[in-house]
Protein backbone atom coordinates (compact mmCIF):
# COMPACT_ATOMS: atom_id res chain seq x y z
CA UNK A 1 0.00 0.00 0.00
CA UNK A 2 2.72 2.46 1.08
CA UNK A 3 4.98 1.32 -1.74
CA UNK A 4 2.16 1.98 -4.22
CA UNK A 5 1.78 5.50 -2.83
CA UNK A 6 5.50 6.24 -3.22
CA UNK A 7 5.48 4.83 -6.76
CA UNK A 8 2.62 7.17 -7.60
CA UNK A 9 4.54 10.11 -6.09
CA UNK A 10 7.47 9.43 -8.43
CA UNK A 11 5.29 9.96 -11.51
CA UNK A 12 5.11 13.49 -12.99
CA UNK A 13 1.62 14.02 -11.62
CA UNK A 14 2.80 12.94 -8.16
CA UNK A 15 5.76 15.32 -8.29
CA UNK A 16 3.46 18.18 -9.18
CA UNK A 17 1.20 17.26 -6.23
CA UNK A 18 4.22 17.24 -3.89
CA UNK A 19 5.24 20.63 -5.28
CA UNK A 20 1.76 22.08 -4.72
CA UNK A 21 1.62 20.79 -1.13
CA UNK A 22 5.10 22.18 -0.42
CA UNK A 23 4.22 25.58 -1.88
CA UNK A 24 0.97 25.64 0.09
CA UNK A 25 2.71 24.96 3.40
CA UNK A 26 5.50 27.42 2.60
CA UNK A 27 3.13 30.25 1.70
CA UNK A 28 0.95 29.58 4.76
CA UNK A 29 4.01 29.89 7.01
CA UNK A 30 5.22 32.99 5.16
CA UNK A 31 1.76 34.59 5.49
CA UNK A 32 1.69 33.74 9.21
CA UNK A 33 5.05 35.42 9.76
CA UNK A 34 3.93 38.37 7.60
CA UNK A 35 0.83 38.80 9.81
CA UNK A 36 2.94 39.01 12.99
CA UNK A 37 4.95 41.86 11.49
CA UNK A 38 1.94 44.03 10.64
CA UNK A 39 1.03 47.11 12.66
CA UNK A 40 -2.04 46.36 14.75
CA UNK A 41 -5.48 47.82 14.12
CA UNK A 42 -5.91 51.04 16.11
CA UNK A 43 -9.19 52.60 17.32
CA UNK A 44 -8.23 55.86 15.61
CA UNK A 45 -6.13 56.07 12.45
CA UNK A 46 -3.69 58.38 14.21
CA UNK A 47 -1.42 60.24 11.77
CA UNK A 48 1.95 60.69 13.49
CA UNK A 49 3.13 62.35 10.27
CA UNK A 50 0.71 65.27 10.66
CA UNK A 51 1.35 65.81 14.35
CA UNK A 52 5.14 65.78 13.95
CA UNK A 53 4.77 68.21 11.05
CA UNK A 54 3.00 70.64 13.40
CA UNK A 55 6.17 70.60 15.50
CA UNK A 56 4.73 68.68 18.46
CA UNK A 57 7.52 67.01 20.42
CA UNK A 58 7.40 63.27 21.16
CA UNK A 59 7.56 64.01 24.88
CA UNK A 60 4.40 66.14 24.74
CA UNK A 61 2.21 63.08 24.21
CA UNK A 62 4.59 60.44 25.62
CA UNK A 63 5.97 62.32 28.66
CA UNK A 64 6.86 59.19 30.64
CA UNK A 65 9.85 58.53 28.40
CA UNK A 66 12.05 61.05 30.19
CA UNK A 67 10.74 60.26 33.68
CA UNK A 68 10.22 56.55 34.09
CA UNK A 69 10.06 53.09 32.60
CA UNK A 70 7.01 53.56 30.35
CA UNK A 71 6.63 56.32 27.78
CA UNK A 72 2.86 56.11 28.05
CA UNK A 73 0.06 56.49 25.54
CA UNK A 74 -1.92 59.74 25.73
CA UNK A 75 -5.39 59.75 27.20
CA UNK A 76 -8.30 61.35 25.37
CA UNK A 77 -8.01 64.40 27.68
CA UNK A 78 -4.59 65.16 26.23
CA UNK A 79 -5.90 64.85 22.65
CA UNK A 80 -8.92 66.97 23.51
CA UNK A 81 -6.85 69.82 24.93
CA UNK A 82 -5.85 70.72 21.39
CA UNK A 83 -8.63 69.09 19.41
CA UNK A 84 -11.56 70.88 21.06
CA UNK A 85 -10.17 74.09 19.61
CA UNK A 86 -10.05 72.66 16.10
CA UNK A 87 -13.28 73.01 14.13
CA UNK A 88 -12.56 69.94 12.00
CA UNK A 89 -12.78 67.70 15.07
CA UNK A 90 -16.55 68.23 15.16
CA UNK A 91 -17.13 67.20 11.55
CA UNK A 92 -14.41 64.67 10.67
CA UNK A 93 -15.51 61.03 10.55
CA UNK A 94 -12.00 59.89 11.39
CA UNK A 95 -12.10 61.87 14.63
CA UNK A 96 -15.56 60.65 15.65
CA UNK A 97 -14.11 57.96 17.99
CA UNK A 98 -12.21 60.68 19.87
CA UNK A 99 -15.31 62.84 20.18
CA UNK A 100 -17.36 59.87 21.42
CA UNK A 101 -14.66 58.92 23.91
CA UNK A 102 -14.62 62.41 25.39
CA UNK A 103 -18.41 62.70 25.56
CA UNK A 104 -18.83 59.26 27.15
CA UNK A 105 -15.77 59.60 29.37
CA UNK A 106 -14.30 56.37 28.01
CA UNK A 107 -10.60 55.89 27.42
CA UNK A 108 -9.28 55.22 23.95
CA UNK A 109 -8.04 51.65 23.65
CA UNK A 110 -4.73 52.32 21.90
CA UNK A 111 -2.87 49.17 20.92
CA UNK A 112 0.84 49.40 21.87
CA UNK A 113 3.08 48.84 18.85
CA UNK A 114 6.57 48.87 20.35
CA UNK A 115 6.40 46.11 22.93
CA UNK A 116 8.88 43.76 24.57
CA UNK A 117 8.06 40.42 26.22
CA UNK A 118 7.08 40.28 29.88
CA UNK A 119 10.47 38.91 30.90
CA UNK A 120 12.21 42.04 29.64
CA UNK A 121 12.27 45.03 31.97
CA UNK A 122 12.78 48.10 29.82
CA UNK A 123 13.29 51.59 31.21
CA UNK A 124 12.83 54.55 28.87
CA UNK A 125 14.34 57.05 31.29
CA UNK A 126 17.77 55.44 31.33
CA UNK A 127 17.89 55.35 27.53
CA UNK A 128 16.77 58.96 27.10
CA UNK A 129 19.25 60.04 29.79
CA UNK A 130 22.00 58.19 27.92
CA UNK A 131 21.35 60.46 24.96
CA UNK A 132 19.39 58.07 22.74
CA UNK A 133 16.88 59.78 20.51
CA UNK A 134 13.37 58.37 20.07
CA UNK A 135 13.84 57.74 16.36
CA UNK A 136 16.87 55.53 16.90
CA UNK A 137 14.56 52.75 18.10
CA UNK A 138 11.10 53.84 16.95
CA UNK A 139 11.95 55.12 13.48
CA UNK A 140 11.18 58.47 11.93
CA UNK A 141 7.61 59.25 12.96
CA UNK A 142 7.38 62.11 10.47
CA UNK A 143 7.21 59.46 7.73
CA UNK A 144 4.46 57.19 9.07
CA UNK A 145 0.83 57.49 10.06
CA UNK A 146 0.24 54.68 12.56
CA UNK A 147 3.44 53.90 14.45
CA UNK A 148 5.50 51.08 12.98
CA UNK A 149 8.50 49.22 14.26
CA UNK A 150 11.44 49.80 11.97
CA UNK A 151 13.13 46.72 13.44
CA UNK A 152 12.34 43.68 15.54
CA UNK A 153 13.09 44.37 19.20
CA UNK A 154 15.17 41.29 19.93
CA UNK A 155 18.01 40.74 22.35
CA UNK A 156 20.79 40.78 19.75
CA UNK A 157 19.66 44.20 18.63
CA UNK A 158 19.55 45.49 22.23
CA UNK A 159 22.95 44.03 23.09
CA UNK A 160 24.67 45.39 19.99
CA UNK A 161 23.76 48.90 21.05
CA UNK A 162 24.64 48.23 24.70
CA UNK A 163 28.12 46.94 23.83
CA UNK A 164 28.65 49.83 21.45
CA UNK A 165 27.57 52.32 24.13
CA UNK A 166 29.94 50.80 26.68
CA UNK A 167 32.95 51.21 24.41
CA UNK A 168 36.22 50.65 26.27
CA UNK A 169 34.71 51.32 29.70
CA UNK A 170 34.94 47.87 31.34
CA UNK A 171 32.71 48.74 34.29
CA UNK A 172 30.00 50.05 31.99
CA UNK A 173 30.27 46.97 29.80
CA UNK A 174 29.75 44.70 32.81
CA UNK A 175 26.66 46.66 33.80
CA UNK A 176 25.23 46.90 30.29
CA UNK A 177 25.80 43.26 29.35
CA UNK A 178 24.63 41.83 32.69
CA UNK A 179 21.57 39.53 32.45
CA UNK A 180 20.09 41.16 35.56
CA UNK A 181 20.03 44.58 33.95
CA UNK A 182 17.01 43.65 31.82
CA UNK A 183 15.79 40.24 33.00
CA UNK A 184 14.36 39.83 36.48
Amino acid sequence: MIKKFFDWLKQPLGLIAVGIVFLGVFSAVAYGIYLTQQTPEQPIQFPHRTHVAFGIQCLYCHPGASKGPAAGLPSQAKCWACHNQIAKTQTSALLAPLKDAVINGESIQWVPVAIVPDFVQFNHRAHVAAGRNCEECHGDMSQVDIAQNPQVFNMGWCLNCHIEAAGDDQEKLVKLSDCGTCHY
Partner: protein
Amino acid sequence: MDLKISEVKLSEEEVGKWGMVIDQDLCTGCQACVAACAMENNLSFVGEEDAGYGRSMHWIRIERFWEGEYPEVKMTPHQPMLCQQCGHAPCEPVCPAFATVHSQAEQLNLQVYNRCVGTRYCANNCPYQVRSFNWRDYERPEPPPNQLNPDVTVRRRGVMEKCTFCIQRIHRAQDKAKSEGREVMDGEFTTACAQACPANAITFGRTDHPESLVSQLAHQGHGAKHLEELGTLPNVTYFKGG
Protein backbone atom coordinates in the same frame (compact mmCIF):
# COMPACT_ATOMS: atom_id res chain seq x y z
CA MET B 1 41.88 18.57 50.00
CA ASP B 2 44.40 21.19 51.05
CA LEU B 3 43.87 22.90 47.74
CA LYS B 4 40.12 23.01 48.34
CA ILE B 5 40.48 24.71 51.73
CA SER B 6 42.94 27.25 50.43
CA GLU B 7 40.59 28.09 47.59
CA VAL B 8 37.78 28.73 50.02
CA LYS B 9 39.98 30.87 52.21
CA LEU B 10 41.13 32.85 49.22
CA SER B 11 37.64 33.64 48.05
CA GLU B 12 36.41 34.36 51.57
CA GLU B 13 38.09 37.73 51.31
CA GLU B 14 35.81 38.68 48.45
CA VAL B 15 32.88 40.75 49.63
CA GLY B 16 29.55 40.67 47.88
CA LYS B 17 27.73 43.83 46.99
CA TRP B 18 24.32 43.41 48.57
CA GLY B 19 23.81 41.60 51.84
CA MET B 20 21.28 40.86 54.52
CA VAL B 21 21.40 40.42 58.27
CA ILE B 22 18.65 38.42 59.98
CA ASP B 23 18.32 38.56 63.77
CA GLN B 24 16.61 35.34 64.82
CA ASP B 25 16.15 36.64 68.36
CA LEU B 26 13.88 39.38 67.05
CA CYS B 27 11.97 37.17 64.60
CA THR B 28 8.56 36.22 65.93
CA GLY B 29 7.72 33.91 63.04
CA CYS B 30 4.72 36.03 62.03
CA GLN B 31 5.17 35.24 58.29
CA ALA B 32 4.71 38.89 57.27
CA CYS B 33 7.88 38.63 55.19
CA VAL B 34 6.52 35.55 53.41
CA ALA B 35 3.31 37.38 52.50
CA ALA B 36 5.12 40.57 51.49
CA CYS B 37 7.52 38.62 49.29
CA ALA B 38 4.67 36.80 47.57
CA MET B 39 2.93 40.09 46.81
CA GLU B 40 6.05 41.91 45.67
CA ASN B 41 7.35 39.19 43.43
CA ASN B 42 4.14 37.89 41.80
CA LEU B 43 4.42 34.48 43.42
CA SER B 44 1.82 31.93 42.44
CA PHE B 45 -0.54 30.35 44.91
CA VAL B 46 -0.18 26.65 44.27
CA GLY B 47 -3.25 25.52 46.15
CA GLU B 48 -3.85 22.68 48.54
CA GLU B 49 -3.17 19.75 46.24
CA ASP B 50 0.19 20.89 44.90
CA ALA B 51 1.28 22.08 48.32
CA GLY B 52 0.66 18.50 49.44
CA TYR B 53 3.14 17.37 46.82
CA GLY B 54 5.70 19.78 48.29
CA ARG B 55 5.41 22.18 45.39
CA SER B 56 4.72 25.30 47.46
CA MET B 57 6.26 28.41 46.02
CA HIS B 58 7.94 30.67 48.50
CA TRP B 59 11.07 32.73 48.04
CA ILE B 60 11.35 33.06 51.81
CA ARG B 61 10.10 30.64 54.44
CA ILE B 62 10.20 30.49 58.23
CA GLU B 63 11.93 27.34 59.42
CA ARG B 64 11.35 25.84 62.85
CA PHE B 65 13.42 23.14 64.50
CA TRP B 66 13.07 21.24 67.74
CA GLU B 67 15.90 20.50 70.12
CA GLY B 68 16.18 17.81 72.77
CA GLU B 69 14.31 14.60 73.57
CA TYR B 70 10.70 14.35 74.69
CA PRO B 71 9.50 15.61 77.18
CA GLU B 72 12.19 18.31 77.26
CA VAL B 73 11.57 19.53 73.72
CA LYS B 74 12.58 23.09 73.03
CA MET B 75 11.93 25.03 69.87
CA THR B 76 14.88 26.84 68.31
CA PRO B 77 14.35 30.47 67.26
CA HIS B 78 12.44 30.98 64.03
CA GLN B 79 14.76 30.93 61.08
CA PRO B 80 13.75 32.85 57.94
CA MET B 81 15.38 31.05 55.04
CA LEU B 82 15.79 32.63 51.66
CA CYS B 83 18.28 32.52 48.81
CA GLN B 84 21.63 33.30 50.38
CA GLN B 85 22.88 34.90 47.14
CA CYS B 86 26.07 32.85 47.45
CA GLY B 87 29.27 34.34 46.15
CA HIS B 88 30.24 30.84 45.06
CA ALA B 89 26.85 29.34 44.32
CA PRO B 90 26.34 25.59 43.86
CA CYS B 91 23.30 26.23 41.64
CA GLU B 92 25.23 28.10 38.98
CA PRO B 93 27.71 25.64 37.48
CA VAL B 94 25.11 22.88 37.07
CA CYS B 95 22.68 24.76 34.84
CA PRO B 96 22.96 23.41 31.29
CA ALA B 97 21.25 26.48 29.82
CA PHE B 98 23.17 29.15 31.78
CA ALA B 99 19.81 30.31 33.12
CA THR B 100 21.17 30.76 36.62
CA VAL B 101 24.18 33.02 36.32
CA HIS B 102 26.14 35.30 38.57
CA SER B 103 25.54 38.98 38.02
CA GLN B 104 28.90 40.67 37.78
CA ALA B 105 27.34 44.10 38.16
CA GLU B 106 25.21 43.44 41.27
CA GLN B 107 27.01 40.37 42.68
CA LEU B 108 23.74 38.48 42.88
CA ASN B 109 22.61 35.10 41.66
CA LEU B 110 20.25 35.66 38.81
CA GLN B 111 17.55 33.42 37.45
CA VAL B 112 16.98 34.26 33.81
CA TYR B 113 13.45 33.00 33.21
CA ASN B 114 13.55 33.15 29.44
CA ARG B 115 16.64 30.93 29.35
CA CYS B 116 15.39 28.37 31.88
CA VAL B 117 14.37 25.06 30.34
CA GLY B 118 13.26 23.50 33.62
CA THR B 119 15.81 20.76 34.29
CA ARG B 120 15.50 21.56 38.05
CA TYR B 121 19.16 20.67 38.48
CA CYS B 122 19.85 23.97 40.30
CA ALA B 123 17.17 23.26 42.91
CA ASN B 124 18.62 19.81 43.53
CA ASN B 125 22.05 21.29 43.99
CA CYS B 126 20.99 24.12 46.31
CA PRO B 127 22.08 23.27 49.87
CA TYR B 128 19.55 25.77 51.28
CA GLN B 129 16.57 24.34 49.33
CA VAL B 130 15.27 27.79 48.49
CA ARG B 131 14.44 27.37 44.82
CA SER B 132 10.91 26.67 43.69
CA PHE B 133 9.69 25.32 40.39
CA ASN B 134 6.59 26.29 38.44
CA TRP B 135 4.95 22.92 37.99
CA ARG B 136 1.90 24.47 36.35
CA ASP B 137 0.51 27.77 35.16
CA TYR B 138 -1.27 28.44 38.41
CA GLU B 139 -4.53 30.32 38.53
CA ARG B 140 -4.39 33.64 40.27
CA PRO B 141 -7.12 34.60 42.72
CA GLU B 142 -9.32 37.60 42.05
CA PRO B 143 -8.75 40.44 41.44
CA PRO B 144 -6.16 39.85 38.75
CA PRO B 145 -4.21 41.29 37.14
CA ASN B 146 -4.00 44.58 38.99
CA GLN B 147 -2.39 42.95 42.00
CA LEU B 148 0.62 41.93 39.92
CA ASN B 149 3.82 43.92 40.26
CA PRO B 150 4.62 45.24 36.78
CA ASP B 151 8.34 45.39 37.58
CA VAL B 152 8.59 41.63 38.03
CA THR B 153 8.18 38.97 35.35
CA VAL B 154 5.16 36.71 35.76
CA ARG B 155 6.78 33.31 35.51
CA ARG B 156 5.18 30.63 33.40
CA ARG B 157 5.08 26.89 33.70
CA GLY B 158 8.37 25.03 33.58
CA VAL B 159 10.78 27.62 34.94
CA MET B 160 12.67 27.76 38.19
CA GLU B 161 12.48 30.81 40.40
CA LYS B 162 14.00 32.08 43.62
CA CYS B 163 14.64 35.16 45.74
CA THR B 164 16.27 37.97 43.78
CA PHE B 165 17.02 40.26 46.74
CA CYS B 166 14.25 42.39 45.17
CA ILE B 167 16.49 43.31 42.25
CA GLN B 168 13.63 45.38 40.81
CA ARG B 169 13.85 47.63 43.87
CA ILE B 170 17.64 47.79 43.53
CA HIS B 171 17.27 48.89 39.93
CA ARG B 172 14.55 51.40 40.75
CA ALA B 173 16.64 52.95 43.53
CA GLN B 174 19.72 53.06 41.31
CA ASP B 175 17.71 54.62 38.50
CA LYS B 176 16.26 57.25 40.82
CA ALA B 177 19.67 58.01 42.31
CA LYS B 178 21.21 58.31 38.87
CA SER B 179 18.49 60.68 37.67
CA GLU B 180 19.24 62.87 40.68
CA GLY B 181 22.98 62.62 40.10
CA ARG B 182 23.95 60.87 43.33
CA GLU B 183 24.78 57.45 44.74
CA VAL B 184 22.19 55.13 46.30
CA MET B 185 22.03 55.98 50.01
CA ASP B 186 22.00 53.34 52.74
CA GLY B 187 18.45 52.69 53.90
CA GLU B 188 16.95 54.50 50.94
CA PHE B 189 15.20 51.31 49.90
CA THR B 190 14.95 47.81 51.23
CA THR B 191 13.62 44.43 50.20
CA ALA B 192 9.93 43.58 50.58
CA CYS B 193 10.62 41.14 53.43
CA ALA B 194 12.71 43.64 55.38
CA GLN B 195 10.12 46.36 54.80
CA ALA B 196 7.29 44.16 56.06
CA CYS B 197 9.09 42.84 59.15
CA PRO B 198 7.34 44.37 62.18
CA ALA B 199 10.21 43.42 64.48
CA ASN B 200 12.97 44.81 62.22
CA ALA B 201 14.63 41.42 62.27
CA ILE B 202 15.77 41.77 58.65
CA THR B 203 18.26 44.40 57.53
CA PHE B 204 19.28 44.83 53.92
CA GLY B 205 21.96 46.96 52.34
CA ARG B 206 25.43 47.25 50.86
CA THR B 207 27.95 44.91 52.49
CA ASP B 208 30.86 46.45 50.61
CA HIS B 209 30.28 49.84 52.25
CA PRO B 210 31.78 49.62 55.76
CA GLU B 211 29.59 52.46 57.09
CA SER B 212 26.28 50.93 56.04
CA LEU B 213 24.01 49.52 58.74
CA VAL B 214 24.06 46.01 57.33
CA SER B 215 27.86 45.72 57.24
CA GLN B 216 28.16 47.19 60.75
CA LEU B 217 25.69 44.56 61.99
CA ALA B 218 27.40 41.80 60.03
CA HIS B 219 30.75 42.60 61.61
CA GLN B 220 29.48 42.55 65.18
CA GLY B 221 31.18 39.23 65.66
CA HIS B 222 28.62 36.69 66.72
CA GLY B 223 26.92 36.44 63.36
CA ALA B 224 26.89 33.13 61.56
CA LYS B 225 26.40 32.11 57.96
CA HIS B 226 24.59 28.97 57.02
CA LEU B 227 26.56 26.01 55.66
CA GLU B 228 29.61 28.19 55.34
CA GLU B 229 31.76 25.05 55.45
CA LEU B 230 30.58 24.26 51.91
CA GLY B 231 32.42 27.33 50.67
CA THR B 232 29.29 28.89 49.21
CA LEU B 233 30.12 32.39 50.55
CA PRO B 234 26.54 33.30 51.51
CA ASN B 235 25.59 36.96 51.72
CA VAL B 236 23.04 36.50 54.50
CA THR B 237 24.25 36.66 58.12
CA TYR B 238 22.19 35.18 60.96
CA PHE B 239 22.23 36.23 64.62
CA LYS B 240 21.02 33.84 67.29
CA GLY B 241 21.29 33.96 71.08
CA GLY B 242 23.09 37.29 71.07
